[in-house]
């Protein structure tokens, strides 16, 4: 009765009312295929698994998910519908979570539509489908993480381009925070515990762990708490705008 469900439904349907959904899905699937087959050399590897497929997910999400997230709040602000939404008898958290879940469900559908590659690998060999399932779960969680970051940033501006660019940068930092490039730099200026903390924020590390087939509770908790944290930031940002 909180209004979350109608908001979710409206938002989800809205994706398919414009070309946005179809353009996004086509580009997503095309890019997934291109990365897997041409850059990842899926066939030449001669291994019946989807590790090359999943390896490129973080990099694709890095650009595609902020494209979905940028309009979430910036568009409402620009068109003035945010005033309508926030004066309906719905708590702010329900609007934030409803819109977020709709966007996440949409990325979930795009992800599910990659199923032909799963059929392909099963046709060609005998892959471990448990590992593949774990990969999909991890990929979905990771998309949710990027989306929560992008949604919170979108709430801070009415300009979609700014929302997109800032989201890509922040998501990039979260993606590579475990890479030597970042850690070597941090090591030079910060004590070890901070280095460890920063490296533990890495999407690559957590997603990598899950996509090997080990759904470790800690990796799941990492993504879930990250999503919760950024949704909370999102709610606070919307509330702050009421006061300013």
């Amino acid at each position, binding site marked *: 009765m909180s209004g979350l469900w109608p908001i979710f439904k409206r938002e989800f349907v*809205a994706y398919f009312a414009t070309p946005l959904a179809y353009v996004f899905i086509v580009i997503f699937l095309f890019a997934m295929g291109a990365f897997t087959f041409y850059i990842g050399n899926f066939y030449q590897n001669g291994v019946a698994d989807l590790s090359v497929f999943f390896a490129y997910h973080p990099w694709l999400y890095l650009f595609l998910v902020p494209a979905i997230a940028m309009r979430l709040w910036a568009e409402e602000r620009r068109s003035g519908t945010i005033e309508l939404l926030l*004066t309906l008898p719905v708590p702010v958290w329900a609007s934030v979570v409803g819109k977020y879940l709709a966007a996440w469900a949409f990325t979930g559908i795009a992800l599910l539509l990659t199923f032909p590659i799963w059929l392909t690998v099963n046709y060609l060999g005998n892959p471990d489908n448990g590992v593949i399932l774990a990969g999909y779960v991890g990929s979905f969680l990771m998309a949710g993480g990027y989306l929560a970051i992008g949604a919170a940033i979108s709430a801070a501006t009415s300009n979609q381009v700014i929302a997109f660019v800032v989201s890509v940068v922040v998501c990039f930092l979260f993606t590579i925070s475990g890479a030597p490039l970042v850690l070597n730099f941090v090591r030079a200026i910060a004590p070890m515990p901070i280095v460890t903390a920063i490296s533990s924020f890495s999407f690559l590390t957590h997603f990598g762990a899950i996509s090997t087939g080990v759904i470790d509770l800690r990796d799941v908790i990492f993504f879930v708490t990250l999503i919760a944290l950024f949704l909370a930031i999102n709610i606070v940002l919307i509330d702050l705008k009421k006061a300013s």
Partner: protein
Amino acid sequence: MIEVEGLTKQFGPFAAVAGIDLRVGRGEVLGFLGPNGAGKSTTMKMITGYLSATCGRVRICGHDIETQTIAAQRQIGYLPEGAPAYGDMTPRSFLNFIAEIRGFVGAAARTHIERAIANTELDPVLEQPIETLSKGFKRRVGLAQAILHDPPVLIMDEPTDGLDPNQKHAVRRLIRDMAPQKAIIVSTHLLEEVEAICTRAVIIDRGRIVADGTPSELLTRSRHHNAVSLLLPTDQAELARARLKSMNDVISVEQTTRPDGLSMLTAFPRQGALLIEDVSALVMAEHWDVRELYAEPGRLEDVFRAVTTHDAARARAQASGAGA
């Protein structure tokens, strides 16, 4: 049903709204007037819970908008400035969404939606995306959304902006019909709208209330209140003007010469004086060839300009008057 006390909104050092007190009860239609940037929309945004007040409080049917936001918002129908709506939706799907979010299901939802559609005459465009609609239809979609749940409190920011005269008339009739059961606040730039539908007019300027009363009370503050105008041939006008000026209750006489050989004389009375009887007696006695003779109830425009013209503008007007 609407209680506003000391409502203030500070944007940095700038006070957009500076201590507004209002009480609007059932059956009242309050016209909210003021120049652009006077704080009308900001006040409405705070009353409906879109913006938080810097200080002061708002209660809607007894619910505080800050602490019991949802309970208060349930009682409000709100048409925001510019009537925003989701452009990719059709009016029907948009109203379905609003009905669902307001907690109506099944037959109750259908009844409320149908009634809102009938009241705003949205039938012809129900299945077109809102972004393709004309300004008038968009405004009516916003209205339909605001009245859908038959709220006891209705707040509308320029409900007739962008409508043609027929549509304006229809919206005003709708507001008048709903008025007895509701407390309504309407902001507008159209002074004739206030006289047409409002039981009370509040003029705000730079965030403060500068006039508050029934339209007829405000009219008594107009310099045209009880002024008498007469239309007569220009060659008689000089004499008539002098005779009018010599009357006890007349402060001043203005003359407008028209190209058709006639002149309009307007005699302004002293505060509270009635001129029409004396002037018509004078006309009879002098046998002037008067074509029109009437007393004015007053003009809201006078009151509006008198109370909202800023000091700077007033000083400029005086300076240019002195130079001429």
